[in-house]
């Protein structure tokens, strides 16, 4: 293969791998949005918290980021239930502005708390279990990205199967479609909300464990992931796990290719996609899938 082609294939694959992680984060956001009809503006900050948790676990106990997965997933599932019980439950019937600003308040709270406690320093886990890269036919792969992609796909498929096959999953979809009808059918709607928010944050917890392998942690690290996740959920259609998965790959690809052409373009292209999708087809790809 000519070196140029190798480089381009490398860029495309790297974008797709990153897209897998985006898909995981967005899947959580999409689930919360679809079931509770609340846009979680603090989603990225939960990711930031998870990354800090992983970092501190590694720093204080030497636990490898990959081995923290059971801890982050469990803790963030429980955190999701607590947030749902403590805050979100009270604003389900509130006006949109209030819903958005409660979650914006959570965003502000977590980001500034992180800034206060851990300063604006960039922190990186050094020598994780998976590091470096390898080459196949001259195309370079980053090992942590590949592992993250594998875990993300696994998790996304698990969530999807859970929603399709299990009793609770079907109940979640029923509530997403029509909460009143689901309630009349005897579904404990409040419990479904708690499970959904918990699952949404568990996805973020997992993503934190994966990203900490190759991404620096700082108080605002969640913000850019949040904007990406909002773009992906809009593109994929809120509430659709498969939609956000495909949209995640598209955005990962778009980011990598535009960054390859000109690093300055990277975010601009993603935001432009966001705005264009919003204006042309705000219901997203969901119906096409």
């Amino acid at each position, binding site marked *: 293969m000519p070196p140029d082609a190798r480089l381009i294939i490398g860029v495309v694959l790297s974008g797709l791998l990153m897209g897998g992680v985006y898909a995981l984060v967005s899947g959580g956001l999409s689930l919360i949005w679809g079931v509770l009809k609340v846009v979680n503006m603090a989603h990225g900050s939960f990711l930031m918290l998870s990354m800090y948790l992983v970092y501190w676990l590694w720093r204080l106990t030497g636990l490898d980021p990959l081995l923290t997965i059971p801890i982050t997933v469990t803790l963030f599932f429980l955190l999701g239930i607590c947030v749902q019980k403590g805050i979100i439950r009270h604003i389900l019937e509130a006006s949109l502005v209030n819903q958005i600003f409660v979650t914006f308040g959570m965003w502000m709270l977590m980001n500034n708390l992180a800034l206060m406690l851990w300063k604006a320093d960039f922190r990186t886990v050094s020598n994780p279990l998976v590091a470096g890269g390898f080459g196949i036919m001259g195309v370079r792969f980053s090992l942590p990205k590949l592992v993250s992609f594998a875990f993300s796909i696994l998790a996304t498929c698990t969530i999807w199967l859970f929603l399709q096959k299990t009793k609770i999953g079907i109940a979640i979809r029923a509530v997403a479609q029509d909460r009143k009808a689901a309630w009349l059918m005897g579904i404990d709607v409040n419990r479904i909300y708690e499970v959904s928010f918990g699952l949404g944050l568990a996805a973020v917890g997992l993503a934190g464990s994966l990203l900490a392998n190759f991404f620096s942690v700082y*108080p605002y690290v969640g913000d850019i992931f949040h904007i990406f996740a909002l773009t992906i959920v809009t593109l994929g259609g809120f509430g659709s796990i498969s939609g956000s998965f495909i949209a995640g790959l598209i955005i990962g690809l778009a980011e990598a290719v535009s960054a390859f052409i000109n690093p300055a373009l990277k975010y601009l292209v993603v935001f432009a996609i966001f705005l264009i999708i919003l204006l042309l087809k705000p219901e997203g790809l969901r119906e096409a899938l």
Partner: protein
Amino acid sequence: MKSYMRVIPKGMSARHIAYLVSAMLLGAYPFVFREPYFLYVMINMLLYAFLGEAWNIIGGYAGQCALGHVAFFGLGAYTSSMLFIKFGVSPWLGMLVGAFLAGGVAVAIGWPCFRLRGAYFALATIAFAEMVRVLFNHWEFVGGAVGLRLPVLSDSFKAFQFRSYIPYYWIIFAFFVFSFLLVYRLSKSKMGFYWRAIRSDPDAAESLGIDTTKYKLISMFISSFLVSMGGTFYSQLVLYVDPASVLVRDLSVRVALVAIVGGMGTIEGPVLGSFIMILLSSLIRARFGEVPGLHLVIFATILIVISTYEPRGMMAILENLRSWAERRRSVAAP
């Protein structure tokens, strides 16, 4: 009671007296507190009150969750600064150019976005503001990520530059009074009632023959016009403009939250919200020193609690307290 009534001119209520007293206190402030720090704190308070009033027009009265106002703030700051640096145009004129530019952009953006319902509108405004930030970050003509440094000159009204904070105080005080009176007039006007109709039920408003898009666009125009003026003021105050200070998402949220904490859709709300925020941050700074983020942590907590339990803000809490006190008095009196 009767003799008390005679002192007050006809048509004036207790509320108007409260306005006048507050205005007099604010007017007396720079004569009492002459230290730069106290002036700076109060300038910030008035700036946020001014921006909060501006956001209140679109967010509080017309009920549209606009979250990209920082883009208009940035446009104002950049336009006047660029015109001054490149062509020597007085920032006062630059401010007007920037305000009309911001208003025009707001209408151009609002036109397609107002078709979007609910959260999608909010997301579109965020996407727009982020795009503007990234654009300015990489646009070398306007200084890129480094930003613009305004030349420091001697005191000059024409150049909108002063050594002392006192002139800045009077300017932002005038801006604020202007915005307050404007919102007061608008809220009592026919358009104010149209906005509230759109806020409470857009479909019903449309069916009653209100051109909802038109009135939303007007409120967007006025709101972004004012916010852009605030941007120019800010750039003249700190004499430095860069994307990290005038185009960050935090600012969009902060502008909106002074209005939300104080009370959306009320004239006094943004003033109250801004007063609480600035008081809190100065008290914390005095007590704990420079702890980055601490005052925002506390303010975010207040925002969460208020938005969750009293969505109508501090104004509603005060109102509840007043009616509670009145009930107690009426129970005690007979």
